[in-house]
């Protein structure tokens, strides 16, 4: 059974239609990449999948039930979201931030249990953040902060991990490190859906690709079926070659400098 089933959904900010008659199914246990030009509705689609925005028409089924029928609390236990970089103005320690990922699992007035503490500890180690525990998050660099925010989403321990350009602030090493962590979570029960600007990163990590244009799905399916010069030419208006790379072990894209009208 499909994890997500989107049936002819539409969404608009005021008069501006952003998602236009879009249908899509997402299956469990894959690393999905969403690519598309700026303004093609990628972030809005992520917000709709997270339940943060509600569709105007059409419906989204999640795990056999209408997404809108889930309580926010239930969704928070099943879907985590890592947004684009966001400045935090208060001196929370990194440990406090990561612990916020456990809030949906802890009753309102209860203290974190031993398992919550153990999960947070192991995530600091896994995410290469040892030594950051007591540092105030408002004094970190953008990249460090983004890694802490990502660690927070891992602590949430959800079935679905939504990444909205989560690596846009990171250097190459930390980008690879973060996507490795996400990739390691993908298994029979965990699904990652990532908006990526860099098609080469998408090619390295995703096994399924969703290519958006003007609020609609232009193409979706396996990486190999979507990532080809024709798609890139139509959607991004650039000339590109897509060739398997022995070095990365995946398809890699190279562009020409020429910009199509």
């Amino acid at each position, binding site marked *: 059974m499909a994890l997500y089933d989107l049936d002819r959904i539409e969404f608009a900010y*005021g008069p501006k239609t952003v998602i236009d008659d879009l249908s899509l199914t997402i299956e469990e246990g894959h690393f999905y990449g969403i690519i598309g030009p700026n303004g093609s509705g990628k972030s809005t689609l992520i917000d709709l999948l997270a339940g943060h925005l509600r569709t105007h028409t059409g419906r989204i089924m999640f795990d056999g039930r209408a997404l809108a029928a889930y309580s*926010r609390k239930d969704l*928070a236990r099943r879907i985590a979201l890592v947004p684009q970089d966001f400045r935090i*103005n*208060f001196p929370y320690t990194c440990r406090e931030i990561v612990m916020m990922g456990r*809030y949906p699992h802890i009753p309102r007035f209860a203290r974190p249990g031993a398992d919550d503490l153990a999960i947070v500890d192991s995530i600091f180690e896994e995410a290469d953040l040892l030594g950051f525990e007591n540092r105030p998050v408002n004094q970190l660099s953008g990249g460090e902060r983004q890694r802490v925010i990502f660690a927070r989403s891992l602590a949430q321990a959800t079935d679905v991990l939504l990444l909205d350009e989560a690596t846009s602030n990171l250097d190459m090493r930390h980008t690879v490190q973060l996507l490795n962590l996400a990739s390691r979570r993908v298994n029979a029960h965990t699904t990652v859906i990532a908006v990526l600007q860099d098609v080469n990163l998408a090619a390295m990590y995703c096994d399924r690709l969703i290519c958006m244009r003007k609020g609609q799905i232009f193409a979706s399916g396996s990486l190999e079926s979507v990532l080809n010069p024709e798609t890139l030419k139509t959607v991004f208006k650039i000339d590109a070659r897509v060739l398997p790379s022995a070095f990365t072990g995946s398809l890699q894209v190279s562009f020409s400098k020429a910009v199509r009208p």
Partner: protein
Amino acid sequence: MTEKKKTTLTVRRGRRLPLMGVVVIMAALLVAVIVISTGSGFVRIPFLDVARIIAAQVTGLEGLVARLDPLVPVVVMDIRLPRILTAALVGSGLAISGAVFQGILLNPLADPYTLGVSAGAAFGASVALLINFTLLGPWSVPAFAFCGALATLMAVIYLTASSGDFSSGALILSGIIVAAILSAGVSFIKYLADEQVGIIIFWLMGSFASKTWAEVGLTATAVIPGLIVFLFFSRDLNLLALGSRTAGSLGVAPRKISLTLLVVASLISAVCVAVSGIIGFVGLLVPHMVRFITGPDNRRLLPVSALVGAILLLAADTVTRAVLPQEVPIGVITALIGGPVFCYIYRKRQTREVR
């Protein structure tokens, strides 16, 4: 391996003091300040007598105060305690609503007045004083101030909502616009007021003089339930610091929580302003200082801010009432002390963050 275990252990303990300890110490300090303040003034009253009078009032045992000058219990119960409790409650109310405004507006420099609530209250009070409205007796000016504050809040929320977004930036901008218009209105009223202008200026500077048990009751009915609401939503308020999208994905309805807390915080500050006039810097400074002790977690910040706000404003009011040779308006005292303290903290923070 053992070394690693050690580091996680110290990390777990963290660098924050235990909340219960801080609350108990601050509560004891507040009681001490209340007792000292009740004893000091034009008529000095020994602490033991203060305790006796309060005990007599609570238990109804007249024997406890039989030996005392009959005037002393009157001074304590009818003059000093109402003023002292009003000052403490207003201090609490301004401090917790300040902390909540800072949390909603994602800005540690916001205060209960950022959204123009004080400008609205000042405008309302000025109108009441200008037209010499006395229909509600002693409640005439506070009633107008309260209505002014609420109308301002509604205007700000309306302006923000019509921008399509409910973000902190939109709220702050709407607040500044509305406050600027109202300040011009207050200036115009002062210009029109002729001989009333002195009364308006005195009201605007804030005072706890001649407060009664009615004001204690009114402030308490706003501040105490308000604090309970804030504590209930304090964990959700923490999540708002991560931005509304992330907060939403962690199980919080960001818009609903912001609006609820915004309305409750504004009600508290409107009541505080209506009762005591405009007292600046408490709402800005107290949460800021308390964060040094408790950290930014609102579950710890809010209860401690409530106590520290009460202690500081009561201490300031006691200084102006009982220590200074002539009573200076409390709003002037808080601004004169709070302003420089704030500049110092702000400057220190800036230099630390530049690194």
